Each structure stands twice: as structure tokens, then as C-alpha cells.
């Protein structure tokens, strides 16, 4: 659906900010919200998976901030096949039953009791930041990872609208036919930045963007400074901190805040709140910015919604040797559902969006809003829905109607 540019929120819009977190499924983080808002397609508590003894194990609100999902749950293409279709070696025409998560996690440690952890989710009060943002702004019921696979190829869809036929982590984006969203923006005279946390965390987009377009990068401190000094670029993508490490500038120890298992989820809550507060606390930015908080993929963690088919990302096909299964992959189905929240004072409180999105929607949206018609991009991006239509209110919500966060030290 074309963007209605007569909407007041769209007419005021100057900045789009995307924060992409790591490796948590929709039900794991937001599934408990169904009890607060029935429109949110979360968990009833009756959802289950069989374990390796054949017992049916129900989902439970017992997720912990750290140490529960250790080892890191598998989320390569074959493992996700098992999680969705019950068979690691094949996908369709097997039905997508979403019954293979416990069996997949069991494969890593052969521990029946531990394998049930993959079905645990957070009760809303344990995630005050994500819960607040989801209840106060717009939740996407149908935002999926772009492919049923791991991080780097999924993040590629956010940068390029495609992973150029890759389904694993050995991806080298050199000499590829489509420009990244950053290259497109710069070529058109717009401003953009990819903010990594610091140089010690760096970016997951190394081989093309870091190597060939170093000027587009900044640090998280740069983002905060840009917000406070009214110097925010038109488009910003933020990467969280991927490691526990000593700060390169001698500021002490820095905790990983990406929420990738086994990093403490609370650090990610603090990070999301910090990004939100930076925009929220500048009245000019708050009125003119759309913030999207999204996760790159489900990290092998349970979700109850079968991913849909989609238009193939022609001409790209991953052969069997790449998928590690008996099937080639035409990029004609999406990955598992992930949390995604659209934030702006122009978004109606408690909105729930039911159209289908994946990470190609990010460059599609930014291109559509800032550049207009643009042809040289992937088939997947051409067909992706754009998300700014959620800024639909006739008037901006009052300041005291929008939350702020008090971040603990």
C-alpha cells in the first residue's frame, strides 16, 4: 500500500532510526503480552512441543535473563528446518508445525530437562522496556526474519534487501549488483550512519561496508551526541554491543547488550531504553523521528507462528551444499517471527499491525520515503511492505502520554 504522505506524522518525518537486536523470538520476548492485549498474537499457555521422550511440554513464563540458553541454541538453516518442519533435512512440502524446537535443542546437549528451556518465555513484568514500548506504540504481529537461518545473512536483508543467495555466515559482499541502503542514500545527497557500539564491538557488515564505505560508520556515543545536538542523520542503523569487553577508550568494562544468548537480557533492555530516551528527550527529534526496534532472527527459540511463503528472491538460489539439507532454497519463504516495534508520538497507543514484514522492509521503507521510485534492488525488496503507515494519528500524542525510562546504573 502506498504511503499516505498527507498524514501529519509523515509530513513532519525527517529521520528513520532502526535498532536491530539479536536472536530472540517473538513469543520468547512478547508472547506474554497476549494476556494484556488479546490483539497481540502471543501465547495462550497451551502451546507445546514434544520432547525426545514423546512427552508434550508446554510453554512457560520461566525465561531467565542469563545462563538458561547455554549452549547457544542452533539456528543454522538445517536446525531451523527441524524447528519448523520437524525434519532437519527437508522443508516444504512438509507442513510447518513448529513442533521441532525441543528436539533441536536436545541435539546440542542430549539433556531432556534442559531442552525444555527453549519453550520458556518472559512474563511482561520482567521486560519493562520492551513491554512498555510494545503496549504504548505499535507491535508487528507478523515481522519475520528474512530467511530461516542465522544472523549475518539476515542482517544483510536490512542493509541490501537481500543476502545475495547466502544462507550461512560466510558471506562476502564484494562486487554485488545491488547497493546498500547507505550507498543509495549518500548517492542521492541524503545523510545516513551505521552506528556500531564501539570499535571493539564493530559491525557485522565487515567485508563490504566497513572496508569500502568507512565514512558511514560512527559509534554509539556519536549517535547520542547527534541526538543531543540536533545533528541526527536522515537514516540511522544501530548495532548493539556484541561482547563483554574493556572499553577501548579506557572507560571501564562494557557489557554486551545485544541480548544474544548468553548475554544478560537486562543489558539489552537498558540499551533499548537509552536509544529511546535519546530521541524522546529531544522534542524536535521526537516529533520528527520514527524508531523501529527489531530483532535479526529468532535464535533457535520457540515461536508458534509458521513462517509464510513469499515471492522468491530471483535470481538467487542457495544450493543443497549451502543449505546443508536435501533441498535447494529459492528464498521463497521467510524465517521465524521476531519482535518488532514501531515507535513515534504519531503512532496510536496499543497499535497492532498484522501485515507481513521482513528485514527487506527496512531498505524498502527508507528508499520509498527518502528516494521515491528506485529500481535496481532485489526482487524481495521490490515486494516488501513498508512500515511508516503506522504513523497515522491526526495529532501528535501529548508529551505526558508517552513514556520515559529511568535507567539504573
Amino acid at each position, binding site marked *: 500500500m502506498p504511503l499516505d504522505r498527507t498524514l501529519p506524522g509523515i509530513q513532519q518525518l525527517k529521520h528513520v532510526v532502526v535498532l536491530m537486536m539479536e536472536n530472540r523470538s517473538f513469543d520468547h520476548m512478547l508472547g506474554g503480552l497476549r494476556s494484556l492485549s488479546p490483539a497481540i498474537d502471543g501465547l495462550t499457555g497451551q502451546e507445546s512441543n514434544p520432547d525426545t521422550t514423546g512427552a508434550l511440554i508446554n510453554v512457560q513464563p520461566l525465561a531467565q535473563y542469563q545462563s538458561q540458553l547455554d549452549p547457544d541454541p542452533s539456528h543454522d538453516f538445517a536446525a531451523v528446518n527441524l524447528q519448523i518442519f520437524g525434519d532437519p533435512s527437508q522443508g516444504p512440502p512438509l507442513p510447518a508445525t513448529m513442533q521441532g524446537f525441543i528436539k533441536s535443542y536436545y541435539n546440542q546437549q542430549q539433556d531432556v530437562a534442559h531442552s525444555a528451556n527453549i519453550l520458556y518465555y518472559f512474563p511482561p513484568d520482567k521486560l*519493562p522496556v520492551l513491554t512498555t514500548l510494545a503496549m504504548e506504540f505499535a507491535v508487528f504481529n507478523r515481522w519475520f526474519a528474512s530467511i530461516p537461518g542465522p544472523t*549475518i545473512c539476515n542482517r544483510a536483508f536490512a542493509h541490501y534487501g537481500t543476502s545475495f543467495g547466502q544462507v550461512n555466515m560466510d558471506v*562476502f559482499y564484494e562486487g554485488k549488483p545491488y547497493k546498500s541502503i547507505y550507498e543509495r542514500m549518500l548517492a542521492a545527497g541524503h545523510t545516513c550512519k551505521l552506528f556500531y557500539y564501539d570499535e571493539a564491538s*564493530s559491525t557485522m557488515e565487515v567485508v563490504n561496508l566497513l572496508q569500502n564505505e568507512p565514512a558511514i560508520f560512527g559509534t554509539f556515543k556519536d549517535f547520542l551526541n547527534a541526538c543531543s545536538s540536533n545533528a541526527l542523520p536522515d537514516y540511522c542503523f544501530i548495532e548493539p554491543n556484541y561482547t563483554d569487553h574493556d572499553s577501548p577508550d579506557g572507560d571501564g568494562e562494557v557489557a554486551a547488550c545485544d541480548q*544474544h544468548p548468553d548475554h544478560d537480557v537486562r543489558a539489552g533492555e537498558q540499551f533499548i531504553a537509552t536509544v529511546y530516551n535519546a530521541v524522546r528527550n529531544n522534542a524536535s527529534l521526537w516529533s520528527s523521528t520514527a524508531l523501529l526496534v527489531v530483532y535479526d532472527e529468532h535464535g533457535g527459540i520457540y515461536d508458534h507462528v509458521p513462517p509464510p511463503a513469499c515471492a522468491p528472491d530471483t535470481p538467487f538460489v542457495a544450493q543443497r*551444499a549451502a543449505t546443508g539439507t536435501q533441498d535447494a532454497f529459492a528464498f521463497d519463504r521467510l524465517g521465524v517471527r521476531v519482535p518488532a516495534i514501531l515507535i513515534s508520538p504519531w503512532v496510536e497507543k496499543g497499535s497492532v499491525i498484522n501485515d507481513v514484514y521482513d528485514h527487506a522492509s527496512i531498505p524498502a521503507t527508507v528508499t520509498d520515503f527518502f528516494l521515491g521510485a528506485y529500481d535496481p534492488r532485489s526482487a524481495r525488496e521490490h515486494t516488501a511492505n513498508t512500515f511508516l503507515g503506522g504513523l497515522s494519528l491526526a495529532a501528535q500524542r501529548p508529551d505526558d502520554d508517552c*513514556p520515559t*525510562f*529511568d535507567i539504573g546504573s
Partner: protein
Amino acid sequence: MQPIKVQAVPRTSFNKHRRVSDLLSSQLRHLQHVVAKQGIEIDPELLLEIQTEGGAARYIAAVTRAVRERRLTMNKGTVAAGPRLVSSPAMKTPLDTAAEGLAIAAGAEETDAPGSKP
């Protein structure tokens, strides 16, 4: 509306000696690809603890800085004279385990073949 309290993160959550995940291993491989391609010489000290998050972060910081500076310098028209040595600051952390360096992926090429476990 009262500000919503965000929980503090306990100090015990922090562990820079945590073994790197497959994601971080992939990031390191990509950085090593660029190091090899650009002929950046790496201080061997930076590879000693690369299997831990803290050690990997030191390597990542040094290489990220070197790659960016090299390209930004080239973009200004001043060609870098030969390989650059990337050195580490004085390391205060004692080695806890025997060092395992990651193999340098010299001249890694695009491939559709599966890499190591994603």
C-alpha cells in the same frame, strides 16, 4: 507519566572470558579476510586470547580502526605505504588458558559452500 524504572545489570553478568559465539567467530573470520586482503600486519599479541569475548574485542578494535583509517586515508588521496602494523596496547589481563589462534583466512573467496557452523 512517571518514568519507568529499568533494572540494573548485576556485575556478575559480565564475563569477558566467555568463549566467543559462532556469530563472533564469523565476524572475526570476516575481519581476518580483510586483514589478509589489505596486507595489514597483526601484532601476534592480539591473537593470544581471541577465543574469549574480551580478547576478541581487542583484536576487533585494532583491525576496525586500521581498516577504517586506511580507507579514509586512501579516499583523501594519500596512498598508504605498504602493510600497516596493528599493535595492541599493554595487556593487563593475564592469560588464563593456552592460546589458540584462529587460522588466518588468507584470500578467502566467495563461495556457496557451507562455512563452519553458523
